[in-house]
């Protein structure tokens, strides 16, 4: 017998037949189908016991109630909390994606101290001792006012503790970032008197005249505004939206009134003029006016006739008259101010002019109108213990009225105006106009302490970072804001054990205060922030801890409000955009992005349309009439007096000719690959323009030119 080809053929066939009859084929086919249906690299949520915990979201001033679904104690989902007095079950995309902040790659995991250009890890004890040592030196030098502090907003007990630390240290240099809440208070202070604030009853108004307020773009308390807007059709209420571009709010409105950027105040005054001339105002309401109503009226009839206003604003004279009549004759009209999200640059002239409309038609403290009432202060801090250094330093005037002036003074001075700076819940190096300038100022301050949870643009400039728990890990009182018709204080509760070596910012402040000893330690005698919170909210603590919230005010406030018209009677100047170029660049607020405080989450960034962000390129909106020489979807170079950027162009007839729109909230540069290096920061292209009379940064945009790249 001879082994030949046929033997090998037999061998091969035998092997094939043997394998075919064996279970290998059947089993591997089955296994590969299971494998492909359950890719092992796809994360699968772990199974376990489901539980729900209630808390309050503090990502924006909306302060919505949230319900966090947990599996075996691990939070997996955030949903809106049903029956919560602000959002009643609703939630926005930032809120539902809130858990991503817990695992953010840019989180600061332990206290960091800068050594040269790099951060080094340091223990909490060493970090607190280091901060106390540095601050002690400043205090010993006799200039405690050289400690400054920038916080996101002046609300809640944590902000209160920062303010208290500064006061007992001896400094009045406490600053907040621009916010709708501060603009509401400033407008109320100008028209009605100090200590008052304004809110809007959007849920009941029958005619909403919005001067650029992005009611469905994240203005005010976003979920509440979404709900109020959604019910508008059922209530047969009208919304007229005045702004230079067809925003989502404008597209959703009954009428969009395009207005030249920065002339909203003039339009409001033009409408006031028609109301006064045609005697459409409420005479009972105007009886409460003082400060020169006649002078104001005369000024309007001279400078703000419909034709003159039409020339300034680009709105037809007949339309101005029509809007004025509709507004004045509406059953429950309300004029709403605060362009975009309401937390960017605003002109006091505009805010006051718009609110004067409310005052004229007599809808103050009436259903569906504007509510004017004293600011709520539910916090009862015990009196501070002040020593002579504290008293002397605190008595000195602030470096400037607002954070913009602080930046300006620090940059302008050769001597350090500020020796040490605390930054909490704010990212001025990204969200202030001319952010490079802000970065330079913060870099110039010898000792910067950041309390950020993330290594963001401002934290990168810090000398030491005392990382805070995220809102999912900490206890805090969160008062509602954003012009909501009722005031609700919610309690944010720790839903999980802190993931990293972070602290509640309240506890960090207590530790610093105790380490500073003397009158400062005496003013902070609480054992922990929790004890402090319970003490300072004692009036509402039972409700806060049991219900999760406390309603401070609800319903229509009683009484009428006095109106002092003197600010407008003096005919303040309208702010002009910086520069000489032909076009105007304006920032756009987009619901899917966040322009102040934290950056938008990776999930939210993913939802941004490619008409806004194409790959890594930011897309600007421009009217085809203005876009001569440019190609739709093509690249262009955008130049403003303070910067140049390469952008993509989107031809859009929904933006007025002569205007370029660029979204806010992109262009982050910190170490989070899901969020950073996407688009550019519009604040790198727009510089601040300080409004005379108010001191506010009122830059509604900047002059710009655009050419093919």
């Amino acid at each position, binding site marked *: 017998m001879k082994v030949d080809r046929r*033997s090998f053929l037999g061998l091969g066939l035998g092997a094939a037949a*043997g394998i075919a009859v064996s279970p290998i084929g059947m089993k591997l086919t089955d296994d590969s189908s299971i494998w492909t249906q*359950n890719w092992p690299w796809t994360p699968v949520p772990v199974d376990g016991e489901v539980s729900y915990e209630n808390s309050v979201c503090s990502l924006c001033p909306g302060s919505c109630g949230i319900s966090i679904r947990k599996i*075996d104690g691990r939070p997996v989902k955030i949903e809106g909390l049903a029956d919560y007095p602000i959002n009643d079950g609703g939630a926005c995309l930032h809120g539902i994606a809130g858990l991503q902040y817990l695992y953010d790659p840019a989180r600061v995991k332990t206290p960091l101290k800068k050594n040269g250009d790099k951060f080094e890890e340091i223990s909490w004890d060493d970090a607190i001792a280091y901060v106390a040592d540095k601050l002690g030196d400043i205090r010993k030098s006799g200039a405690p006012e050289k400690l400054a502090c920038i916080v996101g907003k002046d609300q809640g007990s944590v902000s209160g503790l920062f303010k208290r630390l500064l006061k007992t240290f001896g400094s009045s240099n406490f600053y907040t970032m621009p916010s709708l809440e501060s603009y509401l208070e400033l407008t109320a202070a100008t028209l009605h008197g100090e200590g008052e604030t304004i809110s809007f009853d959007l849920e009941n108004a029958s005619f909403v005249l919005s001067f650029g307020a992005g009611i469905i773009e994240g203005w005010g308390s976003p979920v509440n505004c979404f709900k109020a807007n959604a019910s508008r059709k059922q209530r047969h209420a009208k919304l007229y939206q005045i702004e230079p571009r067809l925003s989502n709010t404008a597209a959703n409105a009954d009428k969009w009134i395009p207005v030249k950027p920065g002339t909203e105040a003039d339009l409001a005054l033009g409408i006031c003029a028609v109301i006064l001339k045609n005697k459409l105002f409420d005479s009972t309401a105007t009886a409460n006016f003082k400060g020169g109503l006649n002078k104001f009226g005369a000024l309007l009839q001279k400078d703000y006739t419909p034709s003159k206003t039409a020339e300034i604003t680009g709105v037809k004279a007949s339309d101005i008259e029509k809007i004025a009549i509709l507004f004045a004759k509406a059953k429950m009209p309300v004029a709403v101010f605060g362009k975009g999200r309401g937390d960017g640059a605003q002109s006091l002239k505009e805010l006051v002019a718009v609110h004067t409309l409310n005052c004229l038609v007599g809808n103050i403290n009436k259903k569906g109108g504007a509510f004017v009432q004293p600011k709520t202060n539910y916090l009862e801090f015990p009196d501070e213990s002040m020593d002579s250094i504290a008293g002397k330093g605190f008595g000195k005037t602030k470096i400037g009225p607002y954070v913009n002036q602080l930046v300006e003074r620090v940059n302008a001075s050769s001597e350090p105006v500020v020796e040490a700076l605390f930054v909490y819940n704010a990212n001025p190096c990204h969200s202030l106009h001319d952010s490079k300038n802000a970065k330079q100022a913060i870099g110039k301050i010898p000792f910067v302490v950041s309390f950020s949870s993330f290594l963001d643009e401002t934290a990168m400039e810090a000398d030491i970072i005392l990382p805070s728990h995220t809102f999912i890990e900490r206890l805090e009182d969160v008062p509602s804001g954003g012009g909501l018709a009722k005031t609700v204080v919610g309690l944010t509760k720790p839903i999980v054990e802190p993931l990293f070596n972070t602290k509640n910012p309240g506890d960090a402040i207590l530790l610093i205060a105790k380490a500073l000893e003397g009158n400062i330690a005496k003013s902070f005698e609480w054992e922990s922030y929790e004890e402090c919170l319970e003490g300072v909210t004692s009036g509402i603590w039972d409700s806060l801890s049991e219900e999760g919230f406390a309603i401070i005010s609800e319903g229509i406030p009683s009484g009428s409000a006095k109106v002092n018209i003197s600010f407008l009677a003096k005919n303040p100047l309208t702010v002009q955009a910086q520069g000489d170029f032909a076009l105007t660049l304006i920032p756009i607020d987009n619901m899917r992005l966040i322009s102040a405080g934290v950056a938008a989450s990776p999930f939210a960034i993913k939802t941004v349309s490619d008409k806004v962000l194409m790959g890594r390129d930011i897309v600007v909106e421009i009217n085809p009439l203005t876009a001569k020489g440019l190609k739709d979807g093509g690249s262009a170079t955008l130049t403003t007096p303070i910067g140049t950027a390469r952008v993509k162009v989107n031809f859009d007839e929904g933006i007025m000719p002569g205007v370029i729109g660029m979204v806010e909230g992109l262009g982050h540069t910190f170490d989070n690959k899901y969020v950073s290096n996407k688009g550019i920061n519009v604040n790198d292209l727009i510089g601040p323009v300080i409004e005379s009379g108010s001191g506010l940064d009122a830059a509604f945009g900047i002059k710009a030119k655009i050419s093919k790249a």
Partner: protein
Amino acid sequence: MSEIENKAENGSTESAGECTAGEAKDDKGLGLGVIFFIVAFVACFLSGTLLFPKLLYSKKEQPFNFDHELHAGETGDCETCHSVREDGSFTGIPKLATCLDCHTEEPLGETEDEAVFTEEYVSKEKEVPWYVYSRQPDSVFFSHVAHTQAAGMDCVSCHGHIGESTSSRVYEENRLTGYSRDIWGKNIFGIKKHSWDRMKMDDCAVCHKEETGHQGYCFQCHK
């Protein structure tokens, strides 16, 4: 006949003779081929049946031995440890907290396994990383409560007599899918003698057909 023709005939005769001789040789060659075939067939069939499962499954020991019989005897039923939550979901293998309803940091018994349990897990407050013999792939939804409470099935129908075992058997993990061997069944051909021998989709369908008259729809389990 011409010379050429003769040559041709001779040639053909020769070639015919060679051909015959060749056929005889081929028969022998075929015989060897058959032997090769059979050898290869048997070798491959046996490796596919005996060796392949050994390669496909990796063997893993449980963290320590668990005596079901002892525990079931102490508690009297399965539900004490494997309970259904208020929302109807099944707890599966109990968490450490459930064990601690009876156990403490002091060992309850004298076995080595009890010592491992208390030292490694109870005192360190660490969950025991049990391998689950009956875990279905993630693409499968299964409700215990619908079967045990609504349909009144007993645990044994699917899980067999694990409640009577005195020690934990070796867990075999499919290297390709990562799931337990128990889903396909111990028998590599998929032959089963008892209802609990195999837990593939067809097994669900057969029982559903018998009990409800319909094998069920895809989305009922693959949501």
